[in-house]
């Protein structure tokens, strides 16, 4: 088997699959290595209604179509690829998998995406699925007439809190600041909902209960005072983290641990490009990820021509 490619793409979200489509269609031998769900965060979107040219679809279907497109042009996709080491300097880049296999390429496009941020406090893992959830659409109906909390202050947190009032008898929003980062219309919608209460300038410290979640302990940050909130469930919406930990010290990252790229998606290492939710940017959409994947593949192609 030829394990040397023109282009190696790390990650198979919207950016990685698009880069795979463009690179393989340009007749560059292309490999995508992926660990996790094909489609990345895209498959977590129930309804996609703003992808141009497609009236409405869901993220899973869109991701599968992109995967089929990439494969139809000859792109190879290896899933469940757990990468142990990256060698990104020099004309020939390589990665070593945990199972000992090595893959090499002249260019690398990094599209490892991001993941939902978790609180990392005692009880969070224990009560996942028995009170703690990260998806209102999925699990809201388990909390009919129950009292729940929502953690977060962005658009997702406030919009989902309002959605959850159609099931729950009471929703307590816990947020670390004295103001919300969400758009004003989302804040207004939440504030005028009589089922929603607010616990501001407070952070969750512990989840506890007997078999199922019963208590959320929060700390009021200005005073350090802790209090217990009786809850049957808690929904956590506190943003995303870029999956860039393996690249620390290898590729330039900014203060938020995002890849620093220029308008051609070049990183600080010649022949290494990055695209998608892991780069320094403001808006994280499927459309922005596909656009960046396109630019990264075309830039990689140009790099190969000049080698």
């Amino acid at each position, binding site marked *: 088997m030829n394990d040397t490619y023109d282009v190696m793409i790390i990650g198979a979200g919207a950016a990685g699959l698009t880069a795979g489509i463009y690179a393989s269609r340009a007749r560059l031998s292309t490999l995508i290595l992926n660990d996790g769900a094909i489609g990345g965060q895209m498959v977590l979107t*129930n309804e996609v209604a703003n992808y141009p040219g497609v009236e409405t679809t869901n993220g899973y279907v869109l991701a599968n179509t992109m995967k089929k497109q990439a494969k139809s042009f000859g792109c190879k996709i290896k899933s469940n690829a757990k990468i142990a080491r990256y060698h990104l300097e020099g004309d020939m880049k390589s990665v070593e998998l945990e199972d000992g296999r090595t893959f090499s390429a002249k260019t690398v496009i990094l599209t490892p995406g991001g993941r939902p941020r978790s609180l990392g406090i005692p009880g969070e893992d224990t009560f996942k699925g028995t009170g703690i959830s990260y998806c209102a659409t999925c*699990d809201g109906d388990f909390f009919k007439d129950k009292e729940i909390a929502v953690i977060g202050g962005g658009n997702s947190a406030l919009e989902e809190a309002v959605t959850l009032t159609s099931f729950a008898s009471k929703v307590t929003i816990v947020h670390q600041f004295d103001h919300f980062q969400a758009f004003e219309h989302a804040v207004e919608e939440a504030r005028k909902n009589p089922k929603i209460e607010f616990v501001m300038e407070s952070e969750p410290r512990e989840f506890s209960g007997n*078999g199922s979640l019963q208590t959320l302990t929060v700390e009021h940050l200005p005073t350090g005072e802790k209090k217990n909130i009786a809850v049957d*469930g808690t929904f956590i919406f506190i943003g995303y983290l870029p999956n860039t930990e393996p690249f620390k010290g290898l590729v330039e990252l900014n203060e938020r641990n995002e890849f620093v790229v220029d308008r051609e998606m070049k990183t600080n290492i010649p022949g290494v490009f990055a695209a998608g939710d892991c780069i320094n940017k403001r808006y994280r959409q499927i459309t922005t990820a596909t656009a960046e994947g396109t630019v990264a593949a075309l830039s990689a192609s140009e790099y190969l021509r000049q080698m």
Partner: protein
Amino acid sequence: MKMLQTEIHEIESADELQKIISENDNVMVCCGRMGPMCIPVYDAMEELEEERENVKFYSMAFDNPEAHVIRNAPEAQGFMGLPFTMYYKNGKVAHATSSIQSMDQITSVLDKHFN
């Protein structure tokens, strides 16, 4: 009627589920919807289906009335997160999980109960 858009075979009735678990030693069934907590589990199952010939992988729609056999299973009592994932060994529930599971979490259950 099929309700899930996955590549995994979807079980449509309680009788079909019973037949499958009685005819196969190792069966994993993911009972969910097409939502963000369920799709990653289906996706992991699609990958594992190619690798694990000793396990049969199936989905079942949570909103299918016939899925009451999973929704009301004693092993799923207290579950409040989709999907409900059941692992059947020789016709009996060997393990059950609630909510999203990573590939590592799934493979560790498969290794523990189906090897």
